[in-house]
């Protein structure tokens, strides 16, 4: 038996112990260590921190039962909606983080079992990478089980919808601020793009109708398009790919 074989169960157990310790720390802190966060969660979290003060405000100062009153009531309502969207998002995020931590814990149990089986079969680990790959397998196995469950699908969708709602409320507040400074907003741009699209469609409809009234115009339109295509082709002929 090589030296590596002799000590491999120690590696495995020590690594599993370390992972458990990290997991327990995470649970105590109520968050996932930054290195373990998935990108989706990070993406959703962007821009969320600066709102936390308003979340507190919503909980402490403005009970939901109080109707906003006075000349700034509309603004106040928007901020309240934003704070409540933030709170809902945070609530669901905590639930999904708990689910993912549970996946992590179950994967470690599965790994421990697999390590025990390998050791009993006389197939200890030769190097650390083998243990790591086995850990990934265990993680994916448990995650696949959970990710397909109705409960997880519902929770993930609820979190997705909550992040959409949060984003919508953020936009409302931002747009009001932009208008205050007479800066263009996304809504205004959308109006322009919508009108532009309607105009284009109208133009295309007219182009289709034109040939019936003046057949030569149809030919011109087609010929123009063909010529444009040929010119584009000449301009870029033999252009090498990037």
């Amino acid at each position, binding site marked *: 038996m090589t030296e590596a074989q002799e000590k491999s169960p120690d590696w495995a157990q020590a690594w599993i112990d*370390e992972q458990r310790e990290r997991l327990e720390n995470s649970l105590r802190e109520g968050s996932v260590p930054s290195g373990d966060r998935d*990108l989706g969660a990070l993406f959703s979290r962007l821009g969320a921190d600066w709102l936390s003060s308003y979340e507190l405000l919503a909980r402490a100062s403005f009970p939901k039962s109080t109707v906003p009153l006075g000349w700034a009531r509309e603004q106040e309502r928007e901020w309240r909606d934003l704070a409540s969207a933030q709170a809902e998002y945070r609530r669901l995020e905590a639930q999904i983080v708990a689910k993912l931590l549970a996946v992590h814990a179950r994967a470690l149990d599965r790994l421990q079992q697999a390590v025990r089986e390998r050791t009993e079969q006389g197939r200890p680990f030769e190097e*650390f990478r083998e243990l790591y790959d086995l850990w990934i397998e265990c993680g994916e196995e448990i*995650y696949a089980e959970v990710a397909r469950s109705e409960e997880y699908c519902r929770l993930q969708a609820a979190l997705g919808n909550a992040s959409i709602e949060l984003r919508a409320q953020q936009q409302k507040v931002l747009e009001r601020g932009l208008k205050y400074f007479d800066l263009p907003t996304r809504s205004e741009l959308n109006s322009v793009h919508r009108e*532009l699209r309607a105009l284009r469609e109208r133009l295309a409809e007219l182009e289709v109708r034109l040939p019936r009234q003046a057949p030569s115009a149809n030919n011109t339109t087609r010929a123009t398009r063909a010529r444009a295509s040929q010119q584009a*082709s000449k301009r870029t002929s033999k252009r090498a*790919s*990037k």
Partner: protein
Amino acid sequence: MTSQPFQDAMRDWLLRLEEGARALSQVGEPVVGCTSKEEIYREDKVVLYRYLATPGPDSRARMRTPLVICYALVNRPYMMDLQPDRSLIRGLLARGVDVYLIDWGYPDGADRYLEVKDYVLRYLPHCADAAAAHARSTAVNLLGVCQGGTLSLCFAAAHPKRVRNLITMVTPVDFRTPDNLLTKWSDGIDIDALVDTIGNVPGEMLNAVFLALMPYRLLSQKYIAILDGPRDRAALENFLRMEKWIFDSPDHPGEMYRQFMRWFVKENRLVEGDLEIAGRSIRLSDVKMPVLNIYAERDHLVPPAASRALARLVGTQDYTEYGFPGGHIGIYVSAAAQREVPGRIAGWLAAREPRGGRAAPRGARG
């Protein structure tokens, strides 16, 4: 508490990973796309390219019917021509196929109101016409890839005379198969609220969803494997090219996304037979030209059953199916794919090329 042997093993491993990271950082920014091409047609942000053949053993005679590749909107189409030894396009050119490719570009805020009808009934027909005119052909062969395959099916059903042969590659048709996790996840999402709120759907958001399908493998193991793997430059370059392609994701036009998710994914209209685009009924039973349906047997994004549903829905009598033994990405870039896929496609097309359909070599026509 950790034991000394554990610390030793861990330290050795971390040193190896560090060496790997150093080797990777010396490779530099990857270059993608390798075959010369010319621009044939442009409309809004959409560009149609024709690829220029380089002399090869089987490229002496060129197929007269041009092959137009319609890629998905989700990623960039240079995956079809990633590098010289991993290029479906190069493999097709070498076998005498005249290859054109539609590049949808990078949609921005001005494109958020583009709809399915813009892609199926405007851009696609215009590109097909431009390719046919350029190749002096009366129709095109169409190769639709992934979501591009779904759009190609709609176009072929709406304009059957303009498509001589249709090839679909890793194409979702039945979005409601039980093994489709992406569909399962999307069921509870309020797509209308999503599009109303964010407009175009960011590529990063879609990527986050794809990564979440196998988070341990895709967020961790993949990187450990490259850092702990062989140090040869070619392998590291290949890895970075793939990495670039995966995360070089255009945003998805908002309205297009809304309609695609509602009609194709949630309501499964292609299968139900009640798809209508701009008032025009789209039925797969109208797809009567020969069809070659290529799927990947280990596809985690488009399960084989989602693609193979096409067999019972198309109206053609000439339907061929080919299951590639690999995954959604491997079907373009693996060594096995280079050996198998271009030959399958070219052979299938050649057998269906009209009599006298092979033209003299044209090479790099200007």
